[in-house]
């Protein structure tokens, strides 16, 4: 599986992180390869979100380092780093006072793209995430939850970042909408081949979306496996997860986009 020659796009090297006195991540080592969707799976408090925020430096590690495209992310300008990484969160965090168009076009605009290029990009992205161009002039509160999350994804993709960080992006959606967005995400990823780190506590989602699944517990990495391997894992925690989610997981692991 591991392309030996290619260096990982994101690499955690012996990372520990203490937040407000508690150790939320310890001795964490992980490599994310170019173009894969690595899912961080685990229950709340297991350190998934912390790991994600360490990548774009919303948090700084207590020890160890995180390398992004071969360079420690502690070096260089944090603003540059963040603009080169797309970020999607569960609460979406759309700017309520901006229209959809302004939300999506924000980073390209502050990066100084010419206005017509920004507009063209916004409409391209709206189409890409399956939204009608009519929505461009709406405000976020006029959209449904699913539409908002699509705008969130479009916004993260706006400046065409190589890396995408997604923190339970579909967690707050109803099952039908979630299913739809997962399917569209897979289709999108087939075209774009972004390097994605995707946080979820939903095993079914992890199996469907992930090219590899990293299981976390209490701030440690338990195991990393491809979806099919994961189902047969002998690791006690992994198999406990599989049991808890019950039947029908095989079909999820077949990664159906249908």
């Amino acid at each position, binding site marked *: 599986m591991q392309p030996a020659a290619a260096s990982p796009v994101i690499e955690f090297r012996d990372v520990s992180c203490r937040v407000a006195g508690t150790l939320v991540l310890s001795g964490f080592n992980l490599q994310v390869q170019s173009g894969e969707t690595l899912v961080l799976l685990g229950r709340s408090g297991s350190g998934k979100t912390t790991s994600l925020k360490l990548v774009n430096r919303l948090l700084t590690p207590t020890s160890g380092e995180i390398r992004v495209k071969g360079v420690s992310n502690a070096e260089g300008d944090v603003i540059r*780093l963040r603009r080169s990484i797309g*970020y999607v*969160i569960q609460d*979406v965090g759309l700017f*309520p*006072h901006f229209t959809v168009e302004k939300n999506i076009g*924000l*980073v390209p605009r502050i990066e100084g793209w010419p206005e017509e290029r920004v507009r063209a990009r916004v409409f391209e992205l709206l189409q890409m995430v399956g939204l009608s161009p009519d929505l461009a002039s709406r405000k976020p*509160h006029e959209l449904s939850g699913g539409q908002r999350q699509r705008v969130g994804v479009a916004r*993260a993709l706006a400046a065409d970042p190589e890396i995408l960080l997604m923190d339970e992006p579909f967690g707050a959606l109803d099952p039908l909408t979630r299913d739809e967005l997962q399917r569209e995400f897979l289709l999108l990823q087939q075209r774009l081949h972004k390097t994605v780190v995707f946080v979820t506590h939903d095993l079914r989602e992890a199996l469907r979306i992930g090219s590899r699944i990293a299981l976390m517990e209490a701030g440690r990495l338990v195991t990393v496996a491809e979806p099919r391997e994961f189902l047969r894992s002998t690791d006690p925690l992994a198999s406990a997860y599989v049991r808890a989610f019950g039947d029908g997981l095989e079909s999820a692991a077949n990664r159906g986009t249908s």
Partner: protein
Amino acid sequence: MSVFRFMWQNHGQVLELTLEHLRLVGLSALFAMLIGIPLGIAIAHRPRFNKPVLASANIIQTIPSLALFGFLLPVPWLGERADRLAILALTLYALLPIIRNTYTGIRGVDPAVVEAGRGMGLTESQLLFQVELPLAVSVILSGVRVAVVISVGLATIAAAIGAGGLGEFIFRGLAMVDDRVILAGAIPAALLALVADFGVGWLERRLQPR
């Protein structure tokens, strides 16, 4: 209706004192915003300082206005002119609502929105001017509105130290035991307060983010 006859007969002075009054209130509100809004932003971002700053503003608010005017009288440059003194005192009183509402407004911005903005690579100043302030503006303005309305009333007392304004009619009327003269100061002051309340309220609604 003799009040209105009195006001008409003295309309020149009514107008002059009203303008003086407006100047006291306007300048002090301006200074209070220039100090209070940045201070409110600062304590919203550094919660350690929020208690001492708000407590100080609170204490100022509890000093009786006449006493505050009196305390400031011996201050060198300020004490030379009563209007300077009055503007300082009114500024100090206006600080609390402005600082507190700025603080509340900024703290009230959805943390997810701020985090998303920061994660997307907005600088701290882009975050402040494009996200936090636009979303907090109506809360901040409602603090300004309270401050201005209070100032209009308080500024009448400034006449006691000779700073002018509509308080002159009120104090003169008290001395003369003449209701007409008191009302010639009180009615325009009340109208000013209403207009200010309505004006800033209108601005507040216009600038509401959604």
